[in-house]
């Protein structure tokens, strides 16, 4: 809807007032919004009306009033009304870069790339040295398939702010779009060196290395890739995002801070959210998580308990609380909360896995087995469930069953060497004569020890050699294991495993795959190796 207004029309003027073509800005039906947002928007609108109705309000002031209303509407996602208000702001003050800048973002959020680009370009005309605007115009060029046009935008941004990761990242992607892989590698490596925590860069860098024919480097960067979007520092948008006094707004800004690893800022946002919506359990849960990540376990427990009080079926709160309790050795309480999470959501695989672990680690071995079995049946992404099942069997001294189970697991997960190690241990040192097979144990471990020199791996090889009667070799492997533990800063382990060294020196084999105090835990493997046929 268009309206024609004349600034200061309520008063006669000595010379003709400028004429502006304006859009009608109305307050939308706010009945669906929460009261705090309703109030903010009503106050903002009243302030705007006061300026509009004010006698001879200067056009700059009208511009600011429309602009501020536009920002508020934009933050609340009333994008149609926000567009009208920001366009009016731009009309009243054509030299203020903020309004076309916000319009650029508004159109971008709507997917209107053409108007977004035009608005950012207008903002750039008004502030040619603004790095954020340069980057967004460059991004618009990339969206439009114009990497050649994007390049000078990012280069200009870099000349103004040489440490701008967003600009280097943009230059790298512009080169990638042109299939100029070596230039892309150069820029993306620089971007990563500027901010090693900007792990999203690893992915386009991997693609650049792939294009340049370096598959090995491509693979290495893929393994390091992160998922957090990289944007330029954007003070204007930060201001807008902090405007709205709503729970979701604080939740989103808190989540953004969490993603950045700024847990203190996340805590601040979540606390504001809790103030606005004290009965919202997810905010308490997120606040608890932010506290836990800062080491405030007691504060975290309080928030998780509050979330559960507000919603007894809030599974994430039960889970988080149980994880803290399990870490603190409060197994009974942890089991109770993992179980509560599962009762509310039986498909919650992570909760079932942690429940199984808690039961097993606390000696409730038989009780852990059905939980592991259910995970194995439902979700093959988690090799640690199979390993946990096998570990429980080992602790139950069901060695034959554990052997068969681990043999099967090795076939399913040929790259997870934890299965090789556990199986070889049983084959080398199970008390049951029918289970032991020293030759097979050594055969399984040979390719493993050629890649990994961790103490538990070397110790397993020593067990296998001892079982084969090659005690001199066993002593050597065990000495290597002790040395490895010492090198790794684990003198306690080194001391404990000297028992087996004495056994081998006495030319006696080991008959205990795992000592009672030795944890049997899944360790994810490194690179894949060719496993022997088990």
């Amino acid at each position, binding site marked *: 809807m268009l309206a024609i207004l004349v600034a200061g029309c309520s008063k006669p003027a000595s010379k003709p007032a400028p004429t502006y073509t304006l859009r009608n800005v109305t307050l*939308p*039906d*706010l*009945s*669906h*919004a*929460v009261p*705090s*947002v309703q109030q903010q928007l009503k106050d903002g609108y009243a302030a705007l009306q006061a300026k509009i109705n004010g006698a001879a309000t200067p056009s700059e002031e009208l511009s600011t009033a429309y602009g501020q209303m536009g920002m508020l509407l934009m933050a*609340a*996602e*009333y*994008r*149609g*009304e926000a567009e009208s208000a920001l366009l009016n702001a731009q009309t009243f003050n054509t030299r203020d870069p903020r309004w076309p800048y916000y319009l650029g973002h508004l159109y*971008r*959020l*709507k*997917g*209107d*790339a*053409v108007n977004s680009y035009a608005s950012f370009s207008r903002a750039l005309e008004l502030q040619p040295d603004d790095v954020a605007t340069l980057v967004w115009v460059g991004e618009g060029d*990339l*969206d*439009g*398939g114009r990497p050649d046009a994007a390049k000078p935008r990012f280069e200009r941004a870099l000349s103004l702010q040489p440490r701008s990761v967003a600009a280097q990242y943009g230059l790298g*992607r512009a080169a*990638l*779009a042109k*299939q100029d892989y070596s230039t892309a590698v150069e820029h993306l490596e620089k971007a990563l060196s500027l901010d090693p925590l900007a792990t*999203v*860069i*690893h*992915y*386009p860098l*991997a*693609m650049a290395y*792939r294009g340049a024919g370096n*598959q090995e480097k*491509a693979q290495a960067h*893929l393994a390091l*890739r992160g*998922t957090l*979007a*990289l944007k330029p520092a954007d003070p204007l948008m930060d201001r807008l995002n902090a405007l*709205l006094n*709503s*729970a*979701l*707004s604080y939740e*989103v800004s808190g989540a953004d801070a969490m993603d950045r690893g700024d847990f203190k800022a996340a805590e601040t946002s979540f606390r504001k959210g809790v103030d606005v919506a004290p009965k919202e359990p997810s905010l308490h849960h997120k606040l608890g998580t932010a506290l836990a990540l800062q080491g405030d376990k007691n504060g975290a427990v309080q928030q998780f308990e509050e979330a559960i009080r507000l919603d007894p079926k809030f599974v994430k709160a039960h889970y988080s609380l149980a994880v803290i309790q399990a870490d603190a050795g409060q197994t009974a309480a942890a089991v109770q909360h993992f179980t509560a999470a599962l009762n509310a*959501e039986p*498909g*919650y*695989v992570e909760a079932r896995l942690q429940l199984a672990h808690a039961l097993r680690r606390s000696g409730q071995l038989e009780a852990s087995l059905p939980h592991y079995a259910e995970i194995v049946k*439902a*979700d*093959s*992404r988690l090799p640690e469930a199979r390993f946990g099942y096998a570990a429980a069997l080992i602790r139950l001294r069901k060695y034959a069953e554990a052997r068969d189970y681990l043999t099967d697991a090795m076939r*399913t997960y040929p790259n997870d060497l934890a299965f090789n190690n556990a199986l070889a241990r049983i084959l080398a040192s199970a008390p049951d004569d029918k289970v032991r097979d020293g030759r097979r144990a050594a055969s399984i471990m040979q390719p493993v020890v050629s890649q990994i020199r961790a103490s538990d791996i070397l110790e397993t090889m020593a067990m296998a050699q001892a079982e084969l009667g090659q005690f001199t070799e066993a002593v050597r492997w065990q000495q290597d294991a002790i040395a490895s533990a010492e090198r790794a800063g684990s003198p306690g382990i080194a001391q404990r495993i000297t028992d087996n060294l004495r056994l081998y020196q006495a030319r006696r084999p080991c008959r205990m795959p795992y000592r009672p105090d030795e944890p049997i835990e899944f360790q994810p493997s490194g690179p894949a190796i060719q496993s022997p046929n088990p």
Partner: protein
Amino acid sequence: MTGEFYYREIMAPGVALFDYDNDGDLDVFAVQSAGPSRLFRNDLSSTRALHFTDVTAASGIVTNGYAMGVATGDFNNDGCVDLYVTVLGPNQLFKNNCDGTFTDVSRASRTDDAGWSVSATFFDYDRDGYVDLFVGNYVEYSIAANKQCFSMSGSLDYCPPHIYRASPSHLYHNNRDGTFTDVTVKSGVGREYGPALGTVAADFNGDGWPDLYVANDGQPNQLWINQQNGTFKNLALLAGVALSPEGLAKSSMGIDAGDFDNDGDEDIFITELTGQGHDLYVNDGRGAFEERSAQSGIRLASLPFTGFGAGWIDIDNDGWLDLVTVNGAVTQDVESLAKNEKFSLQQKKQVFRNVGGRFEDATKLAGSAFEAREVSRGLAFGDIDNDGDLDMVVGNDNGPLRLLINNVGSRKHWVGVQAPVGSRVAVTASDGRTIWRRSHTDGSYESARDPRVLVGLGDAAGQVKVKVVRPDGTTVEQNDVAIDRYNKLP
């Protein structure tokens, strides 16, 4: 719509085009979530007029639960196409009895996958002559566990997928006796999964074995490369098809594979959320891809839309694959909500015309049906009126099914080839061009398409040479094949 913002409400329905009665024309299976799904018989072959009759009751098809989508395939090789319906709850496999009726064999076949299944693909991954079945599952969800989400201003809205836990997808091996075995773990396909929405099988690396691409909502997509021994490896990351060029997982939904640049390999198109832009992954022929949506002209035009059903379709039969997407948002527009529009997710559909490998937004040329704003989800292509061009059926959420008839394709020459599903077909036209297409029923979103291969020939009026590479790797070639008609190759 219940007004309760149940997540399941915004994800269906799919639609299938298949010739259930083998009378030579395409029938329509319309998935219905809140009520029984419907089978419509096309009476074209008997009456010479495009007319459909609701034969649901006579067919014996009774869908249970909250149905989502549909896949088609002849799982028992009896020459009659069977129907697999994905459901929020146990899925249903309907065996075609070859007499116009179907039998529900879900439990007996062991394909009654109990998750929230969305898209499914029949394909013969072990090349034993029997189609196997991949079922893409979305998230762990039930009405009882429905969560409430809110807009920035605090109004109730539909939730994003990450609020729920992804559900594992499943691969079922066809035992050739009417039953299937779940080989998800054994095949390696269970090692990674996300909230799956789109699935398509094709030979992406040119080794003659069918691979599988899975589009995930908000998590990296997967490219399962067939290891030719019953197992698969997900090589999506290194292949360049897991993420956006920036390195971010997108909200991938509809999908199709096709040779848009006529270089003989399968390129991938995926629809995304508003503001993300659709993807065009261009294959180098060996299974390595580059995302070229911006350079090809797709990205800018697709940014305002949330695309679901999608596919490659040579609308004008010029020999170049165009694109169609059907769209509809997944979160409420608060301003529409303020105007008391209770389901304000409507968007128009889009057509992208392929001009020698670049795309132009041709929606305005496609007719008013494309401008109509609806909450579209399923999309299936097929030559419904058997006139030599591809038509389409659109499944709308909380709206009527749409049948869109192509009025331009048959103005140019074409050739139709009926070959076993999964075959690759090369047509060498009289002007010397060789065009590769494949016979498939999967892709798009929750939908199943006409498996007949229809190749546009433009103005090339002479007979063509046709080569068919069957799913088992054997080939058949035929010269002097007549154009402007369908041909069944032995």
